């Protein structure tokens, strides 16, 4: 079969405009497919994993936007005394846009020592001591830095908050790469004295034996009669609840991913059918020379596979390039979904492209291989 590969390539090149259009159409459809897959994976990453189940988020009762949740910071010491609690991290959140946005900036104010202890971040540039030693210092996630063109030493202002970038970090949790960390007390004071002594949420890290659900209930009961009521959920559930509206939209969008697959299938199948119809006589000549019907079938299948696989490779490569270079994300209520490329997503895209190539080639390949030679030779 390999001996016929040059013939297959030349056959595809014979109608180069048609071939290029099919490949580019396939590439665009696969790019969209992978992009949608990246959004879904980003959503899944927020709601699954160890961190999502073993960390509790304490938020003000009946509040959704981080701007409106104001918990007394001293709740930290009360929660820290509960059995099963390993540590409590008070977090002040400030975002320039509480609604769904593709370019929301989310600041998280955290005490430097707690940030270092509980967030798995790797500084790509800058240093910790500069961050800890300067009041208005900020560590910027790599995706925000890419999107906004920020580097160490830059001043950055959003609304009332002005910071100096003292480090750019990368985190294995893709969503964190869209955050900007500042010192807690800086962010509490940044928008006036009204926020001093309050935090947006408390991150409760549990030890191995603690029951997250039981502890969440216990925390809420503890503050039920207090000045500010709380709603405590696992981090995964908190993020899922916060992004519920977006999740519904993302759930719908995944059908568009399937539509893209259907589009590729019809595109490649149409091109392959046209190619076979153009060459009824040529296939009969090849069979006269001694090509087995199965080999004619294989030739058509190879053409179909090449079209879709080439388009798939271009589309997947394009999506990887786009997703890795643009640092894209969508945020709502201060929670960010990062669109990250992944090997599994790339493989999924390629498998889809190959599978579609096989499916698209089946019927025309079968038709070409079953053609009666003599009538086909008379074909104009």
């Amino acid at each position: 079969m390999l001996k016929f590969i040059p013939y297959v390539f030349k056959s595809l090149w014979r109608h180069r405009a048609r071939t290029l259009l099919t490949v580019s159409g396939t590439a665009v459809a696969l790019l969209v497919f992978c992009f949608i897959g990246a959004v879904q994976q980003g959503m899944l990453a927020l709601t699954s994993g160890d961190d999502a189940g073993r960390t509790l988020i304490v938020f003000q009762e009946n509040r959704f936007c981080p701007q409106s949740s104001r918990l007394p910071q001293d709740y930290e010491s009360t929660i820290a005394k509960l059995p099963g609690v390993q540590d409590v991290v008070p977090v002040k959140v400030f975002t320039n846009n509480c609604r769904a946005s593709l370019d929301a900036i989310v600041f998280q104010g955290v005490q430097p020592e707690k940030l270092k202890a509980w967030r798995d971040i790797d500084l790509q540039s800058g240093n910790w001591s500069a961050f800890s030693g300067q009041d208005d210092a900020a560590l910027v996630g790599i995706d925000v830095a890419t999107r906004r063109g920020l580097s160490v030493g830059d001043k950055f202002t959003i609304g009332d908050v002005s910071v100096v970038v003292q480090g750019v970090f990368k985190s294995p949790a893709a969503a964190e790469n869209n955050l900007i960390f500042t010192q807690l007390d800086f962010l509490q004071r940044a928008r006036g004295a009204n926020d001093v002594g309050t935090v947006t949420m408390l991150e409760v890290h549990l030890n191995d034996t603690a029951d997250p659900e039981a502890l969440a209930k216990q925390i809420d009961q503890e503050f039920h009669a207090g000045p500010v009521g709380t709603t405590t959920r696992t981090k995964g559930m908190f993020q899922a609840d916060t992004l519920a509206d977006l999740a519904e939209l993302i759930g719908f969008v995944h059908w568009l991913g399937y539509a893209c697959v259907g589009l590729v299938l019809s595109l490649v199948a149409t091109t392959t059918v046209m190619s076979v119809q153009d060459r009824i006589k040529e296939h009969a000549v090849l069979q006269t020379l001694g090509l087995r019907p199965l080999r004619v079938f294989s030739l058509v299948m190879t053409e179909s596979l090449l079209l879709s696989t080439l388009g798939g490779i271009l589309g997947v490569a394009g999506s990887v390039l786009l997703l890795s270079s643009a640092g894209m994300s969508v945020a709502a209520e201060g929670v960010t979904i990062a669109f990250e490329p992944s090997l599994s997503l790339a493989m999924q895209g390629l498998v889809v492209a190959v599978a579609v190539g096989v499916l698209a080639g089946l019927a025309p390949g079968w038709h070409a291989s079953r053609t009666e030679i003599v009538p086909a030779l008379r074909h104009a």
Partner: protein
Amino acid sequence: MPLVEVIDVSKEYANGEETIRPLDGVSLSIEEGDYVSLMGASGSGKSTLLNLIAGIDQATAGEIIVAGTDITKLSRGKLADWRAAHIGYIFQTHNLIPVLTAYENVELPLLLLPMSSGERRKRVEIAMEAVDLTSRATHYPRQMSGGQEQRVGIARAIVANPTVVVADEPTGSLDDETTEQILQLLSRVNEELNMTLLMVTHDADAGARARRRIRLERGRLMENGKELQTAKLHTA
């Protein structure tokens, strides 16, 4: 034993409600090295007989034995393998693959046979030289004249050294001068390469070049005014 034996072969096909029977129990034998022309009126069934012998059409009844193999008993796949090894087919309209060069067109049948690339190259060069087209090896069919295309078609038919070369109206689409060149080339193929040749033609002058001239009339094969019979085959 004859190289080709056609024994009591019939072919019929439906045309609407009508059944057409272009061949009705015909028999024919061809010896190794023969040059046979098959003539007859249009629609007499001569191309049908040629296609049956070439293994690209199926007989309704009878046996066709080529080099000891009854090809009517072969499956589609086996028949394709058999054609690759035993048949060289020259078409009326050349039927070269337009995206392949002259060299690649001639090489095509060899890709189906177990052969090293060196051996393939050697055989293609010999075939191209035999049809005097070495200088056109890299040309595509669209860059060649009808006569040159047909010579490439002949090179493609002989390159695998087949048991039988069949030619279906090989000069049907050519002018007189080119027809003469092609007929001379076919005679050389038969005489110098000692290849068995069966040519279908409606042109009496072309048919006269063959050593044996057979006519197909009303579904019967006639040679020298007599009908060819099965019984005569094995004594021929």
